[in-house]
């Protein structure tokens, strides 16, 4: 299910880790944004809300926004405020930029128009990043450096994945200049110093913008799940930077330890749903673990049809988000959570990624444990004999 433009913008902007996001919305929109974000990173709650009520709907929300800006300025010592406007102020026509211009604050303020009815989550993410790009500055290019574009701060395993990809790139002699959007304002401002932008699933519009404004070329790659996927990822970047192909082989020892189980799971019919990572996950499952992909769907596809397709398939494991708990419960099959939103599992250990070489091990371990620990599948079954 798609989250709509507001959510996309919120996820992009809250990734600037020393910014405060001020949502100009009624309380309900603010609640949802906070709730989805706080599952696995509870101190990182840099969010304020203008708390629009009926008074603001009738008389306009500009005064509430002005007051919120002033109060937030007193409360938060941060270098950037991002004001994200939702459906209600967009409809009543609040002059958000006018309000921002009328207030003197000791920090940068960027305004993002993100009414939910104006587009998808992807669109919200893309547009918000381009909007934020007005803060970027021309910089001297750092040789063999890249920006990784396409991340959100509330993705499952994001910290661990970024850490692993940074490790792998560093091993290949490549510096990670900025991870967007999971970086400080300073890193974001200096993003044009990178020699290459690496777009992983989303953020293409920002990459296009940076190419045009700062001359930074970009490369679109798959999210690096699996050994093969990771090698492709590293090699593609190395090739582009003329840094030479990375010769380092991944450690196969962990897979050796469980090879008998992998034999048994080979050919397992599975289904995958998710954001831009879904297709890349399916490729890993298919190509490297030998699973048969029954249904592959994106968040923008019709969810009802996805569920029907899964019901009508031989799916034995479903890869998705917390939203899929219902269908997996109904079908009594394991759910492997890998894509946003995950709000019924936490991930706080930064050395257990799903991406990269180490991620291939962790992910395989998760999949095996999901199957092996899934008692219900067999618990309720009775073996019918000829006698009945």
């Amino acid at each position: 299910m798609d989250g709509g433009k507001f959510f996309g913008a919120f996820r992009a902007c809250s990734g600037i880790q020393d910014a405060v996001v001020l949502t100009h919305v009624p309380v309900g929109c603010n609640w949802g944004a906070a709730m989805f974000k706080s599952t696995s990173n509870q101190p990182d709650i840099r969010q304020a809300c203008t708390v629009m009520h009926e008074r603001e709907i009738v008389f306009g929300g500009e005064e509430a926004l002005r007051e919120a800006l002033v109060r937030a300025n007193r409360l938060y010592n941060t270098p950037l405020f991002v004001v994200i406007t939702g459906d209600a102020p967009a409809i009543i026509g609040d002059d958000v930029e006018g309000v921002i211009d009328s207030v003197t604050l000791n920090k940068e303020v960027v305004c993002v128009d993100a009414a939910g009815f104006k587009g998808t989550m992807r669109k919200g993410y893309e547009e918000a990043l381009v909007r934020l790009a007005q803060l970027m500055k021309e910089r001297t290019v750092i040789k063999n450096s890249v920006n990784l574009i396409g991340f959100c701060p509330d993705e499952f395993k994001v910290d661990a994945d970024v850490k692993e990809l940074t490790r792998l790139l560093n091993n290949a002699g490549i510096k990670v200049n900025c991870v967007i959007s999971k970086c400080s304002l300073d890193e974001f401002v200096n993003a044009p110093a990178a020699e290459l932008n690496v777009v992983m699933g989303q953020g293409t519009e920002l990459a296009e913008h940076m190419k045009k404004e700062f001359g930074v070329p970009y490369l679109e790659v798959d999210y690096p799940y699996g050994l093969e996927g990771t090698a492709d990822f590293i090699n593609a970047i190395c090739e582009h930077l003329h840094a030479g192909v990375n010769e380092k082989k991944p450690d196969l020892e962990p897979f050796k330890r469980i090879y008998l189980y992998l034999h048994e799971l080979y050919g397992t019919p599975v289904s995958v749903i998710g954001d831009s990572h879904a297709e890349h996950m399916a490729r890993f499952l298919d190509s490297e673990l030998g699973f048969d992909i029954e249904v592959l769907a994106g968040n923008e596809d019709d969810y009802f049809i996805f569920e029907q397709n899964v019901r009508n398939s031989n799916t034995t494991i479903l890869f998705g988000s917390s939203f899929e708990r219902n269908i997996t419960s109904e079908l009594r099959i394991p759910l492997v959570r890998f894509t946003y939103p995950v709000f019924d599992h936490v991930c706080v250990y930064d050395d257990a990624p799903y991406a990269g070489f180490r991620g291939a091990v962790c992910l395989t371990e998760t999949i095996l444990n999901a199957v092996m620990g899934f008692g219900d599948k067999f618990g309720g079954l009775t073996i019918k004999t000829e006698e009945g």
Partner: protein
Amino acid sequence: MMYGEQTVEIGSESGNGDVRNEGFLRPLISAYSTLPLHGMTAIPGKISGALMVVDSIEDAVPLIHGPIGCAFQRKINPFRPYLPFYETPCTDMNDVDVVYGGEDKLSLGIRETYEKYHPNLIVVITTCPSDLIGDDFKAVVEEIKAKGDVGCDVVYTTGDFVGKTKPVGYQDALFAITDQVLCNGIKREEIERNEESVNIVSFPIHGAGLKVAEMVSVLNEMGIKINKICFDHTTVKDLYDLPKAELTITDYPMAWARLMKERFGVDHYEILAWNRYKETRNPELFSPYGFEGSARVFMEIAQRFGKEAEAEEVIERRKKDATERLSKVKKGLEDKEVAIMGGIHGIGMTLLRDVGIKASVIIYKTQALESRLTSEAINEMLDINVELARKYGSDPEVVVNPTIEEELKAIKETGTDLVISMGATAHKYNKEGIRTFNPMNFMLRHQRIGFEAPIELAMQLKEALKKPRKRNPLLSMLEYDPYRTNLIPEWAALADMFGTLRQGAVGDKDRYDSMYTI
């Protein structure tokens, strides 16, 4: 906070009524409940409340009339975050609909929802965009019904039907169902009455089926029948049967219950009688639990049916029996003293009195209330706590908005045996060698109208007094806000911000209403 009030009703999550291992579920539920969002740093808004109502009616389906994001973010059920709202069909309004109107999409959405789910009731929940552009929901719903396009009832809820009666979404959805379905086209005289019967209707997350069992038994002994209990596997047909009762018993005042009285003559009775408190200022009206509180509630219900004599006999017999059993159970508790958190929610003073325990300290934290209640209401709430404590033989030291050091000092100086404290702060006391009792489990599963609850409380308190006195919890190594002692500094800042901005919201600050719905 009502936020964490989840109960064993989730045992039915499996769909076959199996009661699951509560030992596993309790920490699971608590883990979600401790997110300090509700009321302090965010409010879920009307859609969540309406969804909760629809989710509680087994054969009903919601239809969110708004952009897809409204349905996306509502997947998390704020009242039971462990159990999302899986079915949230949405009309997926876009910018064209916002300009030209979303009525066609609503009409299509209702038909599609019926085709997909075949429910007995579709509840259209409107959102900010559809409310703002002025879609004529009523006309769309009536046209659909008139054409016979769907084979079920359809209602719409906007949040406007009940004024600012909180929780708005919850109240409004129930009002809409009552107004547009139960009362629609049915005349009072056509209803086949279930004489001398009551409906017992509680907040859907309160596990009505479990917590009213004793009440049902007592009322039956008085000669009062049960017409319907909601929400306990409630269906649309059950809702249609509600007007057959003579009286509806609710937790607190409900707009839909008043409407049912107006239209069908079904009277209503509220367990938390804050309306009557406003007239009498009798603090006992906030203590419906324990022997005396329950006896009063049962007698007041009986009076509605002219069954005082029957009630007197049943109440006395039940009370006597329970008192005798309690006297054995509570041995060893008589000289114990507890520190309690002030406020309306929590274990009532009447229950503590019943088990023979005195309050040595009342810790009163007002920060979370200051943006929602007037200072008069906050002070009055404190007075109620203190007055009841003194009336029941305690002479507590009262500390208002203390730092943790001040709390600990008061607790130690008074020789307090146990702190009745939620899990979020228990580690601070355990670190200092003070035992704690988490009241949440008792409040969710045991605190109810009836005479058995004090016995269960006594047993649980005795168990708490056997637990290790000193611990070295990992949590106590983290930095917390000095005043909002359950929040780390980042959350405290957020709470300050949210509270400050919310303070100015029109109609959001009530003298009393919020006291019972936060």
